[in-house]
């Protein structure tokens, strides 16, 4: 315990000295996030400095081993770091599918060579990754994917099409599910491969969403050469890794409805927008709906906390991520509906500086995808019913 107190003191002092003041304000949108990568333009000198300083300590990936550039922190130390960052409202130094997804998968399943090649650049924010999972014909039925990888001795030749690839047009590398054995049962012929997006034959096209932005792309793979050394885990054993990554992704998406440090809570926003009468929100029906949401959100936040605590104590249900993903995304959609409702017509403004370019309306529309991406609500309910409740 004493060691942890020392660590807290040192961390607090270091953050105090090294976190630029402008990085201690809430991130208002994806545009404020630091995504890193070869082509990234930093929004400010502070943003760049903050990334470099944190990366130098490995604190962009605090719990990864130091030999691959990570922070080497224990779970408890990692928690202290999170708490100390939250205390000063520090922004995450890096938003990265590398740190969140493919990095942990390489750590768990990858060869030593892959770890040494890929992990340090992820920690430093030098390489930005995207995920090649869904295909036009393989959405909820992901294992039905058709992108083919033909064996050419020391390499594969990959042909096919991916869709809903997040930020493929801005990414440097892709982790991609491909079919390496067309004759096996569908889950058994899949491999997870890595390739550079500048490889000949890779092209991308952004998809415009109802929110007006284009966070997703179509990615076309036309005779793309992929070295066999870039297969994560065994050939034809990619489905296990894919499921591991999906679990990770669900937890990430499920956590999106939560209020980050320094942000106003939904009730506070409602009070500002609607006003109080005799100490109560001036619109009685809205107050009731808001309370219903607030209760669910508070109980959900406790549940996310409890699931983590149980995992640490070696208890709990393994398929909890499906429940968190289901409930968290539905909660976030309800939150965004309330955001629009409590702002009235202001919530529907699409352009102009006063509305921060229609932030409320666009965030509301974007949230509709939460219960589709990373496995739909219906797929999560299937997983809960079959894997936890044994209903089949």
């Amino acid at each position, binding site marked *: 315990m004493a060691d942890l107190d020392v660590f807290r003191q040192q961390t607090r002092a270091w953050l105090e000295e090294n976190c630029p003041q402008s990085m201690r304000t809430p991130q208002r949108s994806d545009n404020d996030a630091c995504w890193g990568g070869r082509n990234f333009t930093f929004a400010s000198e502070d943003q760049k400095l903050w990334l470099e300083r944190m990366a130098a300590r490995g604190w962009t990936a605090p719990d990864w081993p130091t030999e691959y550039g990570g922070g080497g922190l224990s779970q408890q130390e990692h928690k202290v770091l999170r708490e100390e960052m939250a205390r000063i409202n520090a922004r995450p130094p890096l938003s990265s599918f590398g740190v969140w997804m493919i990095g942990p998968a390489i750590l768990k399943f990858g060869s030593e060579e892959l770890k040494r090649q890929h992990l340090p650049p992820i920690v430093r924010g030098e390489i930005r990754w995207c995920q090649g999972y869904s295909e036009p014909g393989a959405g909820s039925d992901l294992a039905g994917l058709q992108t083919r990888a033909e064996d050419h001795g020391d390499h594969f030749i990959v042909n096919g099409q991916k869709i809903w690839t997040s930020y493929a047009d801005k990414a440097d590398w892709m982790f991609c599910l491909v079919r390496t054995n067309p004759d096996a049962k569908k889950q058994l012929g899949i491999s997870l491969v890595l390739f550079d997006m500048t490889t000949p034959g890779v092209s991308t096209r952004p998809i415009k969403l109802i929110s007006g932005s284009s966070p997703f792309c179509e990615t076309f793979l036309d005779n793309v050469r992929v070295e066999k050394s870039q297969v994560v885990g065994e050939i034809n054993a990619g489905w296990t890794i894919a499921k591991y990554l999906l679990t990770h992704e669900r937890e990430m998406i499920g956590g999106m409805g939560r209020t980050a440090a320094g942000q106003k809570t939904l009730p506070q926003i409602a*009070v500002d927008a609607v006003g109080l009468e005799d100490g109560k929100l001036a619109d009685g029906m809205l*107050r009731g709906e808001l309370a*219903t949401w607030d209760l669910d959100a508070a109980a959900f936040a*406790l549940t996310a906390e409890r699931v983590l*605590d149980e995992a640490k*104590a070696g208890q709990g249900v393994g398929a*909890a991520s499906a*429940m968190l993903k289901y409930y968290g995304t539905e909660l976030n959609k309800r939150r965004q509906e309330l955001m629009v409702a409590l702002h009235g017509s202001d919530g529907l403004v699409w352009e102009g500086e006063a509305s921060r370019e229609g932030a409320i309306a666009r965030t509301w529309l974007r949230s509709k995808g939460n219960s589709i991406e990373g496995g739909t609500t219906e797929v999560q*309910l*299937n997983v809960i019913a079959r894997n936890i409740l044994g209903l089949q």
Partner: protein
Amino acid sequence: MAALVLNEEQQMLKDAAKRFLSESAPVSQLRALRDSRDETGFSRELWQSMVEMGFVGTLIPEALGGAQFGYVGMGQVSEQAGRNLSASPLISTAIGGVAALLLAGSSEQQQALLPQVAEGSLLLALAVDEAPRHAPNRVATRLQETDGGYLLNGRKTFVVDGHVADKLIVSARSAGAEADQAGISLLLVDRNAPGVSVERTIMADSRNAAIVSFDNVTVSSGDLLGEAGNAWAALELTLDVVNAQLAGELLGLSLEVFERTVAYLQERKQFGVTLSTFQALQHRCAHLFSELELVKSAVLKAQMALDAGDAEAAQWVSLAKAKACEVAELATNEAVQMHGGMGMTDEFDIGLFMKRARSVQTLFGDYRYHANRFAALRGY
């Protein structure tokens, strides 16, 4: 912040309560009490066994004969009581009565009464509400100061175990207008004191409740819990303690009724297949499972916050009671629907769970009451 998991001691208490109550106080016992129109409404023999198991003294300090296992500890007993619909004065005496004495009573009062509760010789009941919908600040029952004492006049309703309690813990107004929080007193009244009349009300859940009237009942200053007119804070905290346990009971009840429903879907066949193969039912069960996970977290947090003396405990309790009420209503309604015609029969236990759920939901504030309180506590 403490981890949201049970410690070893609490887990052991949970296991012990689970074993004991499922064997000694199962649903069939409640059914038998109902069918025989039992006058006490619970088994005194069971209560004595619960004393011996240490359940009755869970909240009582060790020095006064209890086990001092705290609110999370008691929560494990409440949850198992919910699973088995165990009929006993746990809520009225071991939780409500003990909490009122601990939070409002003097050390003399605690030393005189708590050992008697711990050994099972004293039953208590909280007489708080006066109207059908919970409103603890609406107190018309009057406590009038006279020469050397007080006179009590008024009427209380939904007094759980009121017809068997040895002593009633009554809220009464010493000053102020009917809905004021200021001016409320808490006092001990013997059920057999002159002027006290008790009418048992048979409720849908076959458990005990009573209407209690006070007609010029003489009360001495030694029967006051705390200062006259200054008991609101203690009363509110007492109700928080009880509601955190009622939420635990609702959690246990909901989990049990849900598990029975899932088991029924796995065995009942129609169209040549078990009902469990239908996605329309699978998804409703999966949703209910998720809601139950939220209730588990909220209930544990509320009980932990009370144990820790958390300044925001009231908020956590209202969150727990509100969610537990909401989900118990959903779980019991879904259970009846998914059991089909069998769910409508008296022979199946499902209906008993639904009736008990509504009673616990209504006692000391339902979903609406606690959602409203939660919102008010959070500044809107």
